[in-house]
């Protein structure tokens, strides 16, 4: 994710399933424009006029941020789908969800659960 999501070092560790606020059962915003390109994506947020570049890992996580899975389930999905260990998947998920949250790309936690 440009604006350096994927390249940044891991954020402070949050154990799977124990995220707070928007990142516990993360749900991607549906009022943003998404253009998928070869497994990566551009996400345009009209409320801020910002465009975000999601690399393949970030986009894979974005797609399963449906508000029904917690961070542990998302990491499990990532590990099962791609050739990545559960530990690495958990690290990616935590780091990227932090980025999504910082960029206000997730529904706020006071939204109705999915």
């Amino acid at each position, binding site marked *: 994710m440009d604006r350096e999501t994927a390249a940044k070092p891991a954020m402070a560790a949050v154990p799977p399933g124990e995220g707070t606020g928007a990142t516990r059962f993360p749900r991607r915003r549906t009022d943003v*424009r998404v253009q998928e390109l*070869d497994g*990566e994506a551009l996400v345009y947020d009209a409320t801020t006029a910002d465009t975000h570049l999601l690399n393949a890992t970030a986009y894979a996580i974005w797609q399963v941020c449906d508000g029904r899975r917690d961070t542990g389930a998302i990491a499990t999905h990532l590990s099962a789908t791609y050739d990545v260990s559960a530990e690495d998947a958990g690290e990616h998920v935590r780091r990227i969800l932090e980025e999504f949250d910082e960029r206000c790309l997730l529904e706020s936690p006071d939204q109705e659960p999915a």
Partner: protein
Amino acid sequence: MFGLLDRSTSRTVTHVALGVVRASLETPVQSLHDGFRRLYRPFVTEDAGGDAIRVRVMPGSLHWGHRRRFRVTADDRLRFEPVRSDELLPRVEWAINWEVPASLPHYLHLHASSLEVNGCGVILPGHSGSGKSTLALALLTRGWRYLCDEFALIQADSLLLDPFPRAVCIKRPGYPVIESLGVRLTGRPHYVKGSKGYVRFVHPLEVREDAIGRRCPVRYVIFPTYVEDAEPALAPLSRAEAAFAMHQVCFNLFGCRRLGLDVLAEVVRGAECYRLTSGDIHRTCALLERLVGGSAQQVVRSA
């Protein structure tokens, strides 16, 4: 020329049709009028039409102790107030550029050089100083066709690239490179373009009679960066990265009739995307010729 005003008080209007961009220049400053007409003689028309960009350059009032300033307006908006007459032509060019996105809202406008080779559109996006104008002129001397050195004009619906054959503005440090390409600069008028310093203009038709490209689909998006003494190299860029980088040099991402991001995504889906490290201009051109499948010059000659 420096600081001298023409004595003529009659206003002269010149209309030009530069590809899809129409503009008119109204001024009583005869030297400016002559310079503009000399640059765009093949594109002068009887009438620019109702949607033309209208640039006016008028001498301002003279105040005691102050130098006279000119007033450069575009579509009735004051854009510049230069002092020197050798600043006027670059300011007129600049004023037209400012108005282009507003005058063509059905196009996406990128800060890029754009060329056509063998029916394929090539976009070289980049900020000022990336070397895109020099590269465009160099490729032009090798048979590529010119669309524009400052804009890529992409029709939002058809995604086709259109020509806006403005004159290429060459900054003084680039003179030796351009002359090494066989384009004679000596003897051309010098102008001053703000902080960029001295510049000279070259119109592509002075390089080749068939220099102007035609409407074409975008097939290559190449981001050049000039690095002195570097070995020219191309590095593939993902389409998402390319679209993201293009949106950063888009003049009207939100002023286009379609959402700019959607247009960019569709453009890169049909294109190969690269980052280019350019060094020696001749080797850089040869590298790009290999990329697009052979020398355009050979194709032109055999056509």
